[in-house]
């Protein structure tokens, strides 16, 4: 089978497609800042396909990691296997990230708004929240200072909101020039990958814009599950499906389906 032999609908899961989308956002030689879960799988996939020279950094201190086993914690000893260095948080978040060496950072989100601002702290009112989420962790640091940011999340109306309950990590704030005005170093979110589509940011308004629709998903579905006004260009392509090669590698990376249940498991 060739490199560009695309898998057909039914031969891959949505999570697999999302991991592939994440991987493709990484260019060869880039320094990639990821957490556990889907971003870790995406970065490992990129490194084993088109971006073998990518360097994966985990905030706990693992630098240029070459882990062969799936990690459950950002500080998991598994990430130290054949790493270039194992140091600490000031090294990764301060010297590497804020120091300007990180090309692309991956984060998740409980809520985002139309400028890509992110909430991972509270659901509900700050004084009397409904749910207390894990908080920023290194998320705010990553979104503040990485050159590009990829957000991976599930696409639900209550998560794609007009107004965040709490602004944890800075997207494009209230629009063009806002990040520069408040003094942020990185250029903010550039891509959002969900279970329905990929979205990028309109360069003029800095608002979220539909970039590609996953195979089998309708525009209607996306709009119904988005709580803010999504910019929709005239021609929106279908997301390139995973290739058979990507799928094979992906399934070898996470053989027990810890983060990406196998097609047979997810049924």
């Amino acid at each position: 089978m060739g490199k560009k032999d695309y898998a057909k609908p039914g031969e891959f899961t949505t999570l697999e497609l999302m991991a592939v989308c994440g991987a493709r956002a990484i260019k060869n030689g880039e320094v990639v800042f990821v957490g556990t879960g889907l971003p870790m799988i995406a970065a490992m996939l990129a490194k084993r396909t088109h971006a073998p020279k990518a360097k994966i950094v985990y905030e706990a201190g693992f630098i240029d990691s070459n882990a062969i086993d799936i990690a459950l914690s950002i500080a998991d000893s598994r990430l130290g296997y054949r790493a270039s260095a194992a140091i600490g948080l000031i090294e990764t978040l301060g010297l590497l990230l804020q120091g300007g060496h990180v090309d692309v950072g991956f984060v998740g989100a409980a809520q985002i708004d139309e400028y890509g601002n992110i909430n991972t702290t509270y659901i509900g009112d700050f004084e009397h929240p409904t749910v207390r989420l894990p908080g920023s962790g290194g998320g705010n640091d990553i979104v503040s200072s990485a050159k590009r940011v990829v957000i991976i999340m599930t696409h639900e109306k209550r998560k794609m909101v007009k107004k965040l309950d709490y602004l944890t990590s800075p997207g494009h704030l209230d629009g063009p020039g806002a990040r520069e005005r408040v003094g942020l170093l990185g250029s903010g979110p550039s891509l959002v990958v969900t279970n329905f589509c990929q979205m990028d940011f309109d360069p003029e308004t800095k608002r979220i814009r539909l970039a590609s629709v996953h195979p089998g998903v309708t525009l209607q579905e996306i709009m119904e599950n988005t709580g803010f006004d999504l910019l929709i260009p005239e021609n929106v392509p279908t997301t390139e499906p995973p290739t058979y090669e990507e799928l094979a590698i992906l399934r070898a990376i996470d053989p027990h389906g810890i983060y990406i249940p196998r097609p047979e498991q997810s049924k």
Partner: protein
Amino acid sequence: MVEAPVEDKRITLKEAAKLIPDGAHLFWGGFGFQRPPMAFAHELVRQKKRNLTIYTCGSEMDIDILAGAYVVSHFELAFFAIEGIGLAPNIQRRIREGAVQIEDYTNLAMALRFLGGALGVPFMPLKSMLGTDLLAKSRFRAKKAEVITCPFTGEKVVLVPSVRPDFSIVHVSRVDREGNAQIDGIKGEDVEGARAGKKVIVLAEEIVDTEFIRSQPDQTVIPNIYVNYVVECPWGAYPMMVYNYYDYDMEHVRMYYQQCKTEEGWQKYCEEYITGVEDHVEFLTKIGMERLLKLRAKKPFPY
């Protein structure tokens, strides 16, 4: 000529926990699943400490236990959860009850706050938090952070206040009885945090001879000058992990998470594994030799 005596800073886990008065402020070491002072958390629960304030970057089951047992009332931190499983069940519940309050920073902000405290300066500069509610909203601190204009470049910089807690609690790979500590693998924010505390308690998987330390001084991560007390505490991070020593026990962690979804479940866990056992060794005995032996790291893997 007088031969320099080796100062012996060893105390027991029980003695170490007794040093912490109610209301004390602690730097809490370990990061994520790596080297949390779990045995120390258990002992604080056994000794019924109250109203502690904890400063840390990101912690997990260890601080969830401390919140569950009403040991800690205030956290200044960046992250808490049971990673890879879900939200920290006890902290959630205690927040709803109003028994726990959290002041939110980022991981880098917290690590720099420890570095600032360790360096003897009252703040550190930072380029995170700008433009967000982390800067705009505070829970209990009078002044959480301050944005200034750089006198050299004109750019905006956030200043975060340094932290000098009453005690720093860190769990390391090995230490000599004078307090010279080595940490294998990642250090998280322990290098800075260990230096920020007014008093420092180092717990370690093993105590080694000081000559071993002195034969490789560039391997010392926390020198003895900073350290007041040393506690030998093997398997002290169980059911979390210690690099080069042992893996986490996910079965136990998942059991904890499931059980703590209810207050009754948490009380049962606490009684069974913490307050119902005499000490750390009895806890390990309860977990069982077979389970522990299986978790030992297998070279060349550090897990």
